[in-house]
Structure formats: C-alpha cells, structure tokens
C-alpha cells in the first residue's frame, strides 16, 4: 500500500495533521534528504518521513542529535539536493552552532529547518520563542497560519531557499503541528537523489578571512530576502477601516475569528505576516499611515512588536502601537480565541460578544489524572532498586535526571528527580554537584538521551575524575516521543538491515569509565546489590539498567499477577512502587490483570510473598 501522503490525486482534498501537511509539502517539493532528532510537537513529521523513505528515493535519518541533523541537511544542500531537518524549539539550541555559521556559508539546494515551538509547554521544559533565531542568524523565516498553508509554505520554503541560497526556517507552534484541517494536494516533484559538489574552499571553509567575506554576503542576502518579503503573497492585508492589527501564525486565526464575531470587519485592517523574517518594512510603514491605532497580536515574546515600533520611530509615526502589556497580552503561555477577542474589543472600545459562561465554582474537587510511568515500566523498578541501595549510604543522595519518560520519576512516591535543565544535563550537572556538595550524586539518563548529549559529559567526568554514579536506562527505544530508533537499537528486529547497533556498555568501557556494571531491573535483589557496590566506588561509576520498554516488548510473555489472601495490608507495593495496575477494593490491594504485564517487581518486594502469578486457565 502506498503511503497516504504520497497520493498522486492532485487537486484532491485530504484531512491532515499539520505535521502531515508539512511532510506533504516537502514531498511535493522533491525532498531528497531529511534528518531529525525526535521532539514533540514535531515528532509526526519524522515518523511519516521515515515511513516514506522506505518506499521512495527519499533518504531520511534519525540523527543522534539536532546539531548532527542540521549538519546532515546542510551538506546535502551544499551538494545541490533539497534537504530538511526537523526539531522541536529547544532542539534548535543544540543545533545553534552549525545554524549560525551555515547562514554565512549558505546553501545550493533548498534547505528547510523546521522549528516546532511549544507555547504553553504542553511537552517541553520551556516556551522559548524561536523567532529570535531568525533575527540572530539572519535567516529567512516563514510562519503558516493554517494546515493547508503548512503544506504550501513548506514547498515554497525550498524554492525561497534556492532563490536566496540560504536555509529557510519554517517556524510552527503546537497548534499548527497538532491541528487537523483540509489540505489540497498538489503535484509531487521527482526527487533529485544525488547532487554534485564543486570545490570552493575560499567560500565554503569558514576560516576567519573567509567568514569576513561571507558575513558581507549574508547581509546582502538579508537585503534580497527583505525585497522578496516586501512583495510576498504570504504577507496579506485584509479588511478595511481606521484600525490596524498586525499578527502572525495561529494568532491570525484568533484575530480573524474575533473580527468576524465582533462584526468590525469594516473598521479594522488585519496585516497577517507569513514571511516574517525579514519583515516587509515598507509595507508596515505604509500600513501605519492608514491606521489610527495598531494592535500587535502574537504569542510569546514581543518579537513583532519591538520591530514594528522601531519602524514607526523610523518613519516618524506617533500612532499608538501596543501588544504585550499588563492590560493587553501576556508573554506567558499560548493565546486563545476568547482572550484575543476580549483584548481586541477592549483596545478598540467595542462590545465583546462573549457567551454567558457557567459558574463552576461549586463543582466538587475532581481528582487529577497526571501522567504516570506505565504498569510494569522498568524505570519504576530501577528507581526502586536505586532508592533501596541508597539507604546503605551514610550521606544523603541527590538525583540529577534527564529528559524522557523517566522524568516522570519526579512524582511521588518515587520522587527520584532533583535537578533537570535540558537534554544531557544529568551528566554535566553531576560533575558540578559532585565538586560542590558532600552528597552522593546519582544521575539518571535514558539511552537515546545518552547518545544525544550525555556522552561528552561522561567523558568530562572520566577526564576530570568526578565522583558520581550515572544510571543509564537502556530500554532500547526513544519511548517518550513515540518509540523512534536510536543508535543503541537493534534494527534487525524491524527487518531493517542497513544499520549498525552500538553497544552502550562497550562504549562506556572504551571511554575509560573505571566501574561499569549492568543490571536487569526486574531482578530487584541483584540490582540493589550492584547499585550498592557502584555507589561506593570512589570515582565515576556507570550502571546500565537494561530492560526493553514494556509498551513495545513483544518477546516477553505478559502473565499477570494477583494478590492472594496472604496479604496483610502493609501496602508497600502502593507506597513504594505505585504501579497503575494496583487498585484498592474492600480495603485490600488488587491488581488489574488487564494492565499488569507480569514484571513481578511487586511480588519480589511483598513482605508476605502474597503476590503470585495468576494461574493459567
């Protein structure tokens, strides 16, 4: 069966997720090389490109991190083929080093960098506004407002990139990535699989003398980009009247719905900026001339507002221009339709058309439903074993952690997370903690995150002789973002033979880590003993906790356990493990057989040995 995003029914309309629309746009543009490190809300882009790459000439890879992904895409584009790299907003921080100088070098084939921002932090550690990367690097940036536009803009981004010889940033937010809407299919261009590389070291090797020339070229390219932005169809003015609104991305949707709801379409002009870096400065300046006052509607930082105000100053305009303030829009979180409508109504002094709300103040307290480690998750077993082993130490332990499912270990009763900044930070921060505190330091990092950015930290620890224990949680997948592969995965299990699996244990030994051990976390007693030994090691010690993610482990027989009447209600299973398969009935703990995967961890810690496998019928 062909992939649904490869449909050749040009002109037909399909319902697509924003991320699928981006893929379709790239496919229509003849994408040749794609690279990513998975991150929500961008993950489905990569998932689909990986599937498509199995069926077409497209080359797609899960790179070890975003910096590598940008470099893979950059060199493909330097060879004259079309490339794309995909990441979440914080991923672009990892990739910022190549990004900044790649802007100097430029590209030959079209190259698109997808930055999926996450205002509101639905699944991220911060809500940074990546539009600043366009200003910082000088690269052109496009921002879609609708799902169909996500497709057409992606396609256009490749053309624009080739026109300017610069990579183009396609900046989305969660509400584009994870919204669904109709998308009109256009023609799919053939993939140009191989390119050519013309040696030109005094333009392509960024040494100081070369870069001094390249920076001149970059400024020249920004100027050309501004001319294109001035005449771009992506920057549109709709409506008429004496008031003005300038907006971008999903904000445009909220603005246009609000203007319709408030019935002020003949009083307000909406300037939607889709080609947002460089801004169409002259167009904005002439927009002021037709407005009595202007409201800037944008999520996140006052990115447009600051620049627009500077343009007003340049053109001698003194009309009121407002956006972020205590009375209008916040820099926090995401915008939403009612908020935008009420601010527009307030700013232009018209009556808000809101519905009569309902009073929810007398609703009873509703118990929360926080996400939890899955029933039988091996991370829970590892956390339990580490906690027990730590009791043998004569000093308190602090637990730097990292980004992945195991970050959920922060929740009680596990409470096994004390410090987290970003991907890979568990290792680097352990180095600092071990030098600054008398505590024992035990850090957790997942296998995919270890490959992503944990390795340099561990090498640092070995070289500088830091003293801590690093627990690498090797579950054989990138579970959090939807089970993508990583270099430690045996790809033959998926019948994919063009990959080489890397052993974490061998790698860690080769780094010169003086103490390395491996545990199987479902074997609780053995694991506790090994953790105890590792914790006492006077230096850097690594314990690799190996157990495949229970959500995708097809090899293990899932035989559920049950609580027998030997139970004396100590409830250690609940107070220490809190596996979601437990429930309480008639004041006794029971196990839901539909959820239990038979990891047997609770059976091993029950002081009455009251938990046994369900007898097979």
């Amino acid at each position: 069966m062909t992939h649904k995003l490869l449909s050749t029914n040009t002109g037909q309309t399909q319902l697509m997720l924003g991320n699928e629309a981006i893929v379709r746009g790239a496919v229509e543009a003849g994408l040749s090389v794609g690279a990513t490190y998975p991150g929500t809300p961008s993950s489905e882009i990569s998932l689909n490109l990986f599937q498509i790459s199995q069926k077409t000439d497209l080359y797609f890879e899960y790179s070890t991190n975003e910096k590598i992904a940008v470099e893979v895409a950059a060199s493909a584009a330097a060879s004259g083929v079309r490339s794309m790299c995909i990441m979440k907003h914080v991923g672009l921080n990892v990739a910022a080093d190549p990004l900044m100088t790649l802007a100097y070098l430029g590209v030959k084939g079209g190259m698109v960098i997808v930055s999926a921002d996450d205002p509101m932090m639905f699944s991220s550690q911060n809500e940074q506004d990546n539009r600043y990367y366009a200003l910082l690097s000088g690269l052109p940036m496009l921002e879609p407002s609708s799902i169909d536009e996500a497709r057409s803009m992606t396609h256009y981004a490749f053309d624009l990139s080739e026109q300017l010889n610069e990579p183009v940033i396609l900046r989305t937010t969660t509400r584009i990535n994870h919204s669904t809407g109709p998308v009109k299919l256009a023609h799919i261009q053939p993939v140009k699989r191989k390119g050519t590389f013309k040696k030109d070291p005094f333009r392509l090797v960024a040494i100081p003398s070369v870069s001094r020339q390249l920076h001149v070229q970059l400024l020249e390219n920004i100027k050309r980009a501004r001319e294109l932005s001035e005449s771009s169809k992506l920057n549109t003015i709709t409506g008429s009247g004496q008031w003005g609104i300038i907006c971008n991305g999903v904000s445009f949707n909220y603005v246009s719905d609000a203007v319709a709801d408030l019935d002020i379409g003949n009083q307000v002009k909406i300037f939607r900026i889709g080609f947002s870096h460089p801004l169409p400065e002259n167009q904005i300046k002439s927009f002021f001339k037709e407005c009595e006052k202007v409201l800037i509607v944008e999520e996140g930082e006052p990115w447009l507002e600051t620049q627009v105000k500077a343009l007003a100053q340049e053109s001698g305009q003194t009309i009121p221009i407002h956006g972020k303030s205590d009375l209008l829009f916040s820099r926090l979180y995401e915008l939403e339709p009612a908020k935008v409508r009420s601010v527009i109504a307030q700013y232009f002094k018209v009556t808000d058309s809101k519905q009569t709300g309902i009073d929810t103040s007398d609703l009873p307290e509703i118990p929360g439903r926080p996400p939890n480690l899955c029933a039988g998750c091996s991370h829970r077993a590892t956390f339990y074993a580490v906690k027990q082993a730590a009791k043998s130490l004569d000093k308190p332990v602090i637990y730097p952690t990292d980004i992945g499912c195991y970050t959920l270990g922060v929740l009680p009763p596990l409470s096994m997370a004390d410090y987290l900044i970003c991907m890979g930070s568990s290792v680097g921060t352990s180095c600092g903690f071990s030098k600054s505190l008398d505590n024992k330091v035990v850090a957790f990092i997942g296998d995919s995150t270890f490959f992503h950015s944990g390795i340099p930290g561990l090498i640092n620890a070995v070289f500088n002789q830091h003293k801590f224990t690093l627990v690498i949680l090797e579950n054989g997948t990138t579970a959090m973002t939807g089970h993508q592969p990583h270099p430690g995965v045996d790809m033959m299990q998926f019948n994919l033979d063009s990959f080489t699996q890397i052993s974490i244990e061998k790698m860690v030994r080769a780094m010169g880590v003086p103490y390395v051990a491996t545990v199987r976390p479902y074997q609780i007693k053995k694991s506790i003993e090994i953790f105890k030994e590792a914790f006492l090691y006077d230096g850097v010690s690594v314990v690799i906790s190996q157990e495949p993610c229970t959500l995708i482990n097809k090899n293990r027989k899932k035989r559920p356990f049950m609580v027998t009447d030997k139970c004396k209600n100590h409830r250690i299973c609940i107070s220490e493990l809190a596996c979601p398969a437990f429930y309480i009935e008639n004041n006794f703990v029971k196990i839901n057989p539909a959820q239990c995967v038979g990891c047997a961890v609770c059976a091993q810690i029950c002081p009455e040995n009251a938990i046994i496998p369900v007898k097979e019928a």
Partner: protein
Amino acid sequence: MMKPIRLIIVAVGGQGNLLASKVLGDAAMRAGIPVVMSEIHGMAQRGGVVESALIFGNANSSIISDNEADILLGFEPSETLRALKKCHKNSCVITSMAPLPPFTVNIGKGKYPDLKNVKSLIQQKTARSFFLNATHLAQEAGNILSVNIVLLGALTATGMIPLSQKQMKDAIRNTVKKAFIDINLSAFELGAAAIA
C-alpha cells in the same frame, strides 16, 4: 457562511478519542462542511487526559476557549465534569457515565465525585444533557473498545452536529479497520438509540 459549531471531546488515554475525531472530520469533509480540529494528547499512553476540539463551519481557530463549546462530548464522567468550564449556558453535554477512576483514587488518595451529583450538576448548568453507559453499550455491541463509536452515535442522534447518521456511518466505514466495521456500526446504533 456557516455559523461555527464548537465541539469538545474529552477522554482518558486509550478510549479512542482521536479515532472519534477522525470519523467526525472525515464525515464533515465528505459533506462539504468546513472543519478544523486540534488535539492535546497529554501523554495519553501514560494515563493522561486527551482533549480534542472540533469546529464545524466558518472559523479559522482550531482551539476552543472556556465558555465557548456548544457541545461537550465526554467519554468519562469525572473528565466531563472537569471540562464543564468549556461550556456556556446553552451548551449540550453528552457523556458516558461509566467511571474510570484515576490511579490516585484507585490507591485511596483523592475522592471520585459522586455520579448522581455529577449528573445533577451537568443538568443544572447546561441547556441540554444526555447520559449513557457507553461501556455497557460497547460490550453489548461486541467490543469494549467501541466506546468511542457508541458516543458518536449518541452525539449524532442529538441533532447538534450538522451530520446525518448515514454520513457518520459512511465515515465509520471509511475510517475503522475492516474487521471492526460491523461491531462499530452496531455500537453507533446502540449509542443513538440510548438517547432517543
């Protein structure tokens, strides 16, 4: 121009909320009705809440603010109650009354709201409300996983969405796996009958 109709669907991870949205989207598109949708998974596989928003008609926004949902379709009573802030005085609520207590309640921490109270609160605060046990009906249809389609049947039968039972059934045929079409069609009918 079609005045927007705003629908919120709330469910617990694993209840098939996203498939329900897909069926609705497919039906709307085939009927030529403009539709945009959005979803927040909240780590669905790990027991969180899944919320979808669907807007039929001429609107660009894909999310729904508090007090702006015309219809709230709840797959689980405590989640329906939690999402009640999305409704306004004229909203219509359709909810399954089969509880799936969160883990915290299961282990004796936190109290699950009284179902009778849930029902009367919803009735008091909204213009129309419909209650059914979608889990029982799904079992009756032959598969407990068809809770989502039972609820689509009920939703369609209210006449609140601009889609006919036939259009919805066609969309089910287009969307679900072949082997499950018959079970899902009878789930749809049971849901529709439950509120008739």
